[in-house]
């Protein structure tokens, strides 16, 4: 790194795609350090450390499962508890990460307006730092599955695929939202409001077939595809899983390209709005 010739040349136009991508790659080390610090500072002072990352969504899932099976009585099947937990853990990663990363460029302006590095680094910190919590939470869930009435099986091999899809969709959406948030500060609140509604239009705390006629519409929610794969990996696939998953993959690719392009074109201009 130090042997590279350092020449900074800046004009009014955004960096070319190749130059920008090279610049982002050159800052991979910084991203790693920031992500590790983000993870450490969150759990360092807590006595149960990273277990909180599991305990909180587990508790939430337990409450949801009890409410929906005993009180409202829409929960069906012996594996409903496992079904809810499997979805909630993924949702917790998605919601927590999206809230942090969609506002990251503004929130870390102290770090951002002095030294140059591509701002996408800040956006990528929460998704990467939170992967640890995500992996730990599923590592805790898997041995619990037999207790919750679900047999272990080869379908668990789908878990890494599910995690990749979840992280990819979260990153893609964060790239777009974080760029917009610099210009429109409403984004922070829109994200909070949207997440509130989004949880209930995603089959996390109920089974998708309960939606009857609306089940087809739910397929076009990209988070449906994500939780569908998590359900397939834990309690087993449901019929008609292909369409929501295809929607998620396409949405992710589109958001990813749009997000990267926004980040590249607006880099070195974000700072003017902080």
């Amino acid at each position, binding site marked *: 790194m130090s042997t590279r010739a350092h*020449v900074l040349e800046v004009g009014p136009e955004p960096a070319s795609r190749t130059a920008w991508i090279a610049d982002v790659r050159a800052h991979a080390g910084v991203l790693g350090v920031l992500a590790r610090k983000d993870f450490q500072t969150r759990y360092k002072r807590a006595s149960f450390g990273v277990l909180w990352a599991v305990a909180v969504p587990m508790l939430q899932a337990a409450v949801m499962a009890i409410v929906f099976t005993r009180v409202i009585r829409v929960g069906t099947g012996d594996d409903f508890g496992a079904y809810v937990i499997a979805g909630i853990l993924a949702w917790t990663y998605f919601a927590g990460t999206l809230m942090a990363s969609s506002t990251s460029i503004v929130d870390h302006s102290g770090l951002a307006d002095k030294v140059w590095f591509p701002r996408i680094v800040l956006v990528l910190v929460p998704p990467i730092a939170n992967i640890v919590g995500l992996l730990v939470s599923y590592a805790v869930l898997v041995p619990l599955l037999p207790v919750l009435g679900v047999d272990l099986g080869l379908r668990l091999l789908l878990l890494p695929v599910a995690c990749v899809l979840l992280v990819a969709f979260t990153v893609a959406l964060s790239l777009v939202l974080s760029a917009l948030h610099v210009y429109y500060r409403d984004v922070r609140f829109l994200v909070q409001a949207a997440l509130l509604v989004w949880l209930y239009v995603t089959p996390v705390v109920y089974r998708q077939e309960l939606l009857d006629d609306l089940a087809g519409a739910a397929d076009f929610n990209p988070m449906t595809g994500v939780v569908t794969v998590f359900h397939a990996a834990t309690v087993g696939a449901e019929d008609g899983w292909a369409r929501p998953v295809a929607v998620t993959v396409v949405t992710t690719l589109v958001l990813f390209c749009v997000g990267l392009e926004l980040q590249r074109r607006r880099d070195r201009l974000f700072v003017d709005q902080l």
Partner: protein
Amino acid sequence: MSAAIELNGVSKRYVKLEEQAMLLRSVMPFSRPKRSELMALRDVDIAIQPGETVGVLGRNGAGKTTLLRLLAGVSRPSAGRLVVRGRIAPLISVGVGFHEEMSGRENVYVNGMLLGLSRVEIDERFDRIVEFAELADFIDTPVKFYSSGMFMRLGFSVAVHVEPEVLLVDEVLAVGDLGFQLKCFDRMRELKARGTTILLVSHSMHAIRLLCPRAILLRHGEVAFDGDSEDAISRHYELMSLDAEAGEHGATSGSVTVVERALVGPGGATVHQADQDTPLALRMRLRFEEAVDSPHLVFAVTAEDGTRAYEMWTAVGRRYRRFEAGDETEVEIAFEPRLGGGTYRFTTTVLAADGKAALAHDDAATLLYMPPPLGAAGVADLRAVITVGGELLNDHPPLLLDGG
């Protein structure tokens, strides 16, 4: 050899929305928020050769910070092109992007990496960085518990130990105690000797004089002067006085107008800087818009940071003369500037005979730069002589750099 820093026709325009942009308003037609444009830099051409140390002067809002931001690569110009050749260490305001929750140690690593060092390179330099910053006992404390001085010391220490080829410094020497400031000067001189290109933005004429043979004066986003730093400093004071005059001339509380004022040296010529041994005088011409009986004066001297260095009141209550409407009179305030180093503002207030009602207040065109007496700090020049065992110890050798 190609220039270390090169700006060709660089302009930076900020578009400020009158109100914070709101999603709703920008989506709806006919309700776009009003925009106003601010040209922070206008068609700036600068070339700085490797190894040069150049000061940047200018009032607040002249474009100094924008210039540094562009050179640090954080922002991009609206027009023109800039090139910086070499590893850049920007030291823009206090703390080069520290993470509050992290310890000093962790911040050194993050910071070092942001400045382009590898982990191994930071390992090698770590002890020197901590030692220079004088933070050995606090290096594992989260930086949110640091004082601003500690923050700055760590930031400066990391930046200079990166061994940058281009060092951008903004106002950093204003913080910290005198001992550390001197250490920073030494370190900057060392870097300079090794061929580092240094750009120093400062309100401290002292720092610019000591370190920079060349200075660039910015005014309203344009280069107003580029050349010898002594000339740049004189031009800076001249422009500041002109601006102050333009802004405040004639602004009085009504009954008395200050028509002219000048800070003059022994020969009667206007001065913008002086040494402690030259007697000076503030000369003013007052015009009475209405009849005033025995007005009184307060002469006050204020340092850069707002400290009142000196004040002299005329004897309130003493009746000496009645001025009629339309009368003009001369005022002379003679004094010896036994002040410490820095820039001082001279303020004159005209009071009614009872010493209560202010009739006029004037601080235009009366800025004075005092070079600091060697080894001294503070607003007063007490001319202390320190001897130990009869040996005179505070006859400092001149603290000047080798030119060029």
